[in-house]
């Protein structure tokens, strides 16, 4: 267990170590992990740069929009697939699962072409619209929905609820543990996403943190590792906080079912 913990925390340790070292100091061996001299100059440089704040804001806007989209649309799609059980919906479910097997890299060029034709490249829409419903989230909520007794919806119908009322007032609140997982996963994946935001943006106006940091730390002939690591540590703070919080929330929700 300790070995696993060490392996998992090592990259974070390296990032922290490099970000706190003076310029020119690099990590040659594990012995260099603890810096001889600590400096927060790189953090100050990252924070004082307006570009970092912009990237942070862009990442926040995009991540919140994508999480909100998934929290609304994934349960609706899953509910429709589960409850309107017909040949057509079963085919749709297979198609949803099939999209999970297609690597993102294959979708990169068609996605770019499509968004380019819609004049959406280098806008927030390019970073939000294609990711509003994730196939994994639909499948995940679908599986969770299966564990909820159908009778509570039927009880709602008998109480006078319409389909929309039964879904939003009875089914949706019961999905909370699954939605906590959806929100966390979607946020983390989106916050850390590099490749597609890199391809779909071309200016600092909408660049997200991972893309922005990579460009920000690039000199003409070299990479400023200390600056990149300081930015990465700052960028990782929200993900670490959310991960720890959501773990507790999901546990308490599951325990209260």
């Amino acid at each position, binding site marked *: 267990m300790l070995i696993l913990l060490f392996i998992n925390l090592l990259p974070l340790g390296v990032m922290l170590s490099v970000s706190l070292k003076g310029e020119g100091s690099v990590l040659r061996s594990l012995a260099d992990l603890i810096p001889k001299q600590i400096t927060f100059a790189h953090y100050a440089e990252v924070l004082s740069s307006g570009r970092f704040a912009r990237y942070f804001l862009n990442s926040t806007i995009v991540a919140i929009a994508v999480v909100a989209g998934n929290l609304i649309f994934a349960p609706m799609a899953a509910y429709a697939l589960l409850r309107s059980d017909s040949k057509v919906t079963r085919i749709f479910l297979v198609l949803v699962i099939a999209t999970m097997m297609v690597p993102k890299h294959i979708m990169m060029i068609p996605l770019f072409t499509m968004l380019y034709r819609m004049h959406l490249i280098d806008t927030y829409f390019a970073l939000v619209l294609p990711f509003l419903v994730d196939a994994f989230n639909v499948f995940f909520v679908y599986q969770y929905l299966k564990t909820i007794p159908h009778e*509570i919806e039927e009880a*709602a119908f008998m109480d*006078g609820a*319409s389909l929309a009322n039964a879904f939003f007032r009875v089914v949706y609140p019961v999905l909370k543990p699954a939605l906590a997982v959806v929100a966390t996963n979607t946020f983390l994946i989106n916050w850390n996403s590099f490749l597609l935001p890199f391809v779909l943006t071309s200016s600092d106006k909408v660049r997200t943190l991972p893309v922005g940091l990579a460009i920000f730390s690039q000199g003409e002939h070299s990479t400023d590792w200390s600056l990149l690591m300081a930015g990465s540590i700052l960028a990782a703070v929200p993900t670490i906080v959310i991960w720890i919080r959501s773990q507790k929330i999901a546990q308490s929700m599951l325990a209260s*079912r």
Partner: protein
Amino acid sequence: MANVVLKNVTKIFPGGVVAIKDATIEVADREFLVIVGPSGCGKSTFLRVIAGLEELTAGEIYIDGKLVNDVPPKDRDIAMVFQNYALYPHMTVFDNMAFGLKLRKFPKEEIRQRVHEAARILGIEQLLDRKPKALSGGQRQRVAVGRAIVRKPKVFLFDEPLSNLDAKMRVQMRAELSKLHNRLKATIIYVTHDQIEAMTMGDRIVVLKDGMIQQVADPMTLYDSPVNKFVAGFIGSPAMNFIDGKLLRDGALYFDEGTFKAKVPDEIASHLQAFEGKEITLGVRPEVIQEKTDKIGLEIVPFKAKVEVVEPMGNETIVYVTTGKTPIVARLIARKDLKPDSDVEFVIDMTRVHFFDPSNEKTIV
């Protein structure tokens, strides 16, 4: 309150499974009708088509004189109590009970009054702030009933509401539901597989088998005059004994089981002439069989049997015996110290038996 009429109702599920076959029945206003039958006989489907949760394949359903075939469940003004209670897990007991009223946009004060009134009737006022997970099975059951009664619907549907409770709680809730029916003067359709619930609670009972109504009658008529072997065997606990044999004429008419012969009383014999010399099934309720005493008459027929199992119940004794050919259950009206494997003489009161036609299982007399 309202009456419910089903006319030639048929429900066939995709795949061809026939759940209800051409059912016609009228449930009177304020009647407590119990639908009873073995697992898979279609009794829950019966409730679900009345509720509108399943679409009909054929037939018509009227509630309070209005055809409701195409009316969605929310507009039928019916309340249903589910087997697993189906309480909303994220809501408090108060909110569970108030949900239907909120959807119908009742004023807040009236909602509060109705929920508290229902909670008082059911003795759950102290539970109103709890969530369902913090309730026992019996309490959940009361909340489910409370959720149904606050709306004062036209018809109540109960789908095996007591089957998840322990035996003691079941007996208690049985009585409480009967009291509630008297108090609410409501039309209730109640589904159960437990014939004791059916006998003790229903004004009338519908016995279902394979989606077909076998008999509709009040409890005592069902017990005393079943229309066929299935109803006779389903109603009554322990179940009626069915003894196969032949009708023989030896001066009088005799039922011959093989190991014993019993004279058929004259008033019954007159109905059995068509079966002389033929196979026939004798139906005997367990309480009609007693241990042999000196009081043997022409119609109190003795037979010898070997005791297999004895179940002392305190006020009575259930004895499983065999004649060597037929297994028989007897309910003896006193404590009896019988030993397994012992040979004992019993008597059958032939004035209280039934005869069934083995070819179609219908009651002859």
